[in-house]
């Protein structure tokens, strides 16, 4: 454990308890601006069924035998899990940002071409307390309540709503402001927070851990206040903690993802920065300031020595997700990133969609970045719009040829995904499947074929799609080497699921 040298503070600083702020004293002044968005959303949904993707589902969903079209690949057996903000409305109150809804775990159990679905709201301590109180108690990332209750720490508002991790025999629902939540694999019930050790209880564990090809897991957590800090985790194959680091990197803001290479951990600190002084009446999101004239700072940390670091500058931009990164022989790092001009997608599009309004924003584009061993970083290429980039597990942190993303067929405008794309970084070829009008794909994952050659295209792509015209969600599987041919098979649920974020596939 590399926790020595961490500054220790007294109880007070300590009662930083309140990690993510309780703001009730300011709330009464805001009462008039808190008219609920439920009615506006419901009215908009009548006229635009695409908004089905942001409608709250029941707490529990079950479908025993999905209807399957096409031929499900015989070797593709296991469980495909997904997570995302789901309980957007409860007790007559609707959150004001997509990121705020309570998480819901979805399991697609695939066995010999027979597929069953279970969806369960993740019963976090936060949701349990709210249900016991009969009202929403806590502010969200982008929502301030007029009457929110105090927190004992960030986990007090933990909605476990971003991703799913299966590692060391454990199934975990991931958030990014606090702890991971343990899920029971048989029942999918939440079983409390995952502790990595007493000093790490309640410390942020982000939703984009990276599994190194050596089988170990790297992750980070961001704490914005009282002092901005990045926590680093290295976790063994069996789920045991191998190392922890604490990094001070100056002002921080939302950092949703990171990248690894063979030797390094890479953090891109965009100039969208949290300012605690703005928290008075603002949500955590609204206490961030966009500094378009400022540079982006890229921090590269040596995996073997967290104290060995290098910095690079880049022109400002904003993104959520990386495709991958790798090191060249001369120490240069190549970093692929889904990056927009500014954070409008976060501050506008994904906020007002909760009210039923689509506000266009700068789309994330597939951006290829070079970080030479010394000096500024360089943007080598900015290509078509791309989000939810995934590579084959075998090439995480290693040079990759193929990357799989979502995209748009026309002029992208914020959140308008319709296509699944494979990019070939060697030839520049782009292969696309267009789901067509009325369908919105979600993240598609690469699953290696059992007994295959382990190659980057010797596998399947598996992912969900919302058919908002039909009001149904489906699960698609593609041959990763033949994306334009369309899905090999699709399994349709008898109900729609809200659009979510990330998932994982567990073979078996």
């Amino acid at each position, binding site marked *: 454990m590399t926790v020595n040298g961490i500054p220790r503070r007294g109880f007070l600083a*300590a*009662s930083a*308890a309140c990690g993510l702020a*309780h703001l*009730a004293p300011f709330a009464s002044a805001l009462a008039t601006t808190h008219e609920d968005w439920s009615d506006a959303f419901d009215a908009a949904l009548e006229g635009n069924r695409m908004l089905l993707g942001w409608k709250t589902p029941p707490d529990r969903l079950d479908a025993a035998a999905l209807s399957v079209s096409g031929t499900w690949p015989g070797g593709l057996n296991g469980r495909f899990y997904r997570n995302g903000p789901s309980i957007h409305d409860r007790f007559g109150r609707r959150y004001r940002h997509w990121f705020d809804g309570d998480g819901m775990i979805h399991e697609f159990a695939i066995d010999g071409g027979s597929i069953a679905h279970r969806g369960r709201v993740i019963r976090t301590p936060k949701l349990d307390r709210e249900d016991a109180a009969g009202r929403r108690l806590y502010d969200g990332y982008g929502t301030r309540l007029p*009457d929110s209750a105090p*927190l004992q*720490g960030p986990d007090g508002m933990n909605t476990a709503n971003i991703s799913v991790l299966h590692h060391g025999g454990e199934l975990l629902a991931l958030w990014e402001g606090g702890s991971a939540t343990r899920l029971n694999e048989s029942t999918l019930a939440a079983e409390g927070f995952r502790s990595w050790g007493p000093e790490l209880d*309640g410390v942020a564990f982000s939703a984009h851990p990276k599994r190194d090809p050596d089988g170990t897991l790297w992750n980070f957590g961001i704490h914005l206040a009282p002092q901005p800090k990045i*926590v680093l985790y290295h976790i063994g194959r069996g789920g045991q903690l191998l190392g922890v680091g604490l990094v001070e990197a100056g002002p921080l803001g939302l950092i949703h993802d990171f990248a690894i290479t063979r030797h390094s951990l890479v953090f891109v600190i965009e100039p969208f920065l949290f300012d605690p002084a703005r928290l008075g009446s603002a949500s955590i999101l609204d206490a961030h300031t966009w500094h378009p004239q400022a540079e982006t700072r890229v921090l590269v940390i040596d995996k073997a020595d967290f104290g060995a670091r290098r910095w690079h500058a880049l022109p400002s931009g904003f993104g959520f997700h990386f495709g991958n990164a790798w090191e060249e022989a001369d120490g240069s790092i190549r970093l692929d990133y889904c990056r927009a001009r500014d954070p409008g997608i976060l501050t506008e599009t994904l906020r007002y969609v909760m009210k039923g309004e689509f506000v266009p924003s700068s789309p994330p584009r597939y951006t290829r970045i070079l970080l030479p061993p010394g000096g500024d970083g360089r943007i080598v290429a900015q290509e078509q719009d791309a989000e939810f980039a995934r590579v084959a597990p075998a090439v995480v942190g290693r040079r990759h040829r193929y990357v799989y993303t979502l995209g748009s067929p026309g002029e992208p405008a914020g959140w308008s995904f319709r296509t699944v794309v494979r990019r070939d970084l060697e030839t520049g070829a782009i292969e696309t499947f267009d789901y067509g009008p009325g369908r919105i794909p979600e993240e598609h994952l690469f699953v290696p074929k059992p007994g295959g050659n382990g190659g980057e295209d010797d596998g399947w792509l598996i992912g969900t799609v919302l058919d908002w015209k039909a009001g149904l969600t489906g699960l698609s599987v593609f041959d990763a080497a033949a994306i334009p041919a369309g899905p090999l098979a699709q399994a349709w649920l008898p109900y729609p699921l809200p659009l979510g974020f990330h998932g994982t596939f567990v073979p078996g």
Partner: protein
Amino acid sequence: MKRIPLLLAAGVFLSGLPALTAPGISGAALAAELTIAISGITSAEGRVYVAVHHERGNVSFPDTEGAVAGAWRMAKEGGFDISFSGLEPGRYAVSGFHDTDGDGELDMNLLGIPTESFGFGNGASGLFGPASFEASSIALKQTATIRLPIGYSGPAGPTDRRSDQ
């Protein structure tokens, strides 16, 4: 495990007395009695510690260095009162925590976030830190009772519950 001695400086660790006499305060008018109504204790494990700050020492609140009195009781589910008699009239703020492992210290993670339940007088809370002396305090003339919810299971906060439906 990071441990912070919350009440060592407060002096008193007496238990089982109906009312404690605050140390370190001398003079004529020590006639007032402050009762702390603790609530929200979820288990009988360990102890519950409280600390009392007088307005003169408010800059250090809730650091126990500046506390004028403190006490602990064996934890029991729900709530109970602790009274301090012989106090000088004035303004007092209180804080407390549930020391579930009974080591006399408020355990914290490596970022300084407590991993045991805590609370401030009146159910006050702070922004990225402890509640203020002012919000956690009450005026004491002869007798007064201040509410100290610990953790999440006490009253949801200083705000009255509103009807949402």
